[in-house]
């Protein structure tokens, strides 16, 4: 709460969002406590909550937990949804009215979810009317603290597109080829982030 309303340490810089995460196939008691605490802060400040899901699991359950604790679905974004291309998993998450982020674009090769199968799923989601709840990002890391990720040479091609220009250089053209409109793209990259922060 203090980091949102007063600032982080003595910097005067206030946190613009809260991030919480859960484990693979479970939300532990400790993680649940963090989710509930985040909701308490959101209720008082309106700050958005974004999440980490592990290995493409617990997206719907995270949404359910946050909302049942009193969180505002308009201010919740379930993260790393790109780690699971099962359309039922995606829809079960959207059902709760939250935002969902395909936010590991370019990194799926390492996460075991190659993008060849991902683009058609994204296009399908938009055809089903979920463009107004979808966001795209990369989870890119500009600089690593401590030793950086040290990938073997053979693994480098898997992350060849893991950079913050991937969305603009490759993803948007792929989506447009699949029939996604300019208006839908604008909704995803501009309108949805605005609405998440505005709570609309």
């Amino acid at each position, binding site marked *: 709460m203090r980091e949102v309303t007063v600032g982080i340490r003595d910097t005067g810089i206030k946190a613009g969002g809260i991030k919480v995460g859960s484990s693979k196939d479970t939300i532990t008691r400790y993680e649940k406590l963090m989710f509930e605490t985040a909701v308490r802060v959101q209720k008082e400040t309106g700050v958005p909550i974004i999440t980490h899901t592990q290995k493409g699991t617990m997206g719907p359950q995270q949404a359910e937990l946050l909302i049942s604790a009193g969180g505002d679905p308009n201010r919740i974004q379930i993260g790393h949804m790109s780690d699971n291309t099962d359309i039922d998993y995606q829809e079960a998450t959207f059902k709760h009215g939250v935002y969902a982020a395909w936010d590991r674009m370019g990194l799926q090769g390492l996460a075991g979810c190659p993008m060849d199968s991902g683009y058609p799923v994204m296009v399908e989601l938009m055809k089903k009317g979920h463009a107004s709840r979808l966001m795209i990002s990369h989870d890119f*890391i*500009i600089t*690593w603290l401590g030793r950086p990720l040290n990938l073997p040479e053979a693994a*480098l091609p898997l992350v060849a597109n893991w950079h*913050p220009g991937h969305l603009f250089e490759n993803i948007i053209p792929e989506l447009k080829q699949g029939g996604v409109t300019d208006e839908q793209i604008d909704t995803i990259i501009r309108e949805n982030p605005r609405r998440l922060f505005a709570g609309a």
Partner: protein
Amino acid sequence: MTAVNSVLGAIAPDELGITLMHEHILYGYPGWEGDQSIAPLDRGLIVNNAVATLTRLKTIPASNPMSMPRPWTAAACLNSTRRFPKNPVFKSYAPPGTTTKEKERRRTGRSAAAWATSGRNARSCSCGK
């Protein structure tokens, strides 16, 4: 309408524009601070990398986000991190009979001579420059 707490202070959601929701300017796994002998904190590097990358992103025209001035070169960024000594702990294992030269090569990922003449902190990120 709720204000957005940006690093430079409160702004209106309408001022956001095109937004990447989940990126890291700086990231470390818990315990990174115990790794200072091998990968010391380099504030200048962190700031330079961040400014270069974020400046580059800001050149993407809002009217046509697909028209990047030139291709992004993340590969250069990832490769630059490989100038670090590679996992010295794991690579220090050498079976009996291994020559000193070979042990050093395993430890550093390159020859002892190359290691001695190289700047240990000579790492930079050309990403976005």
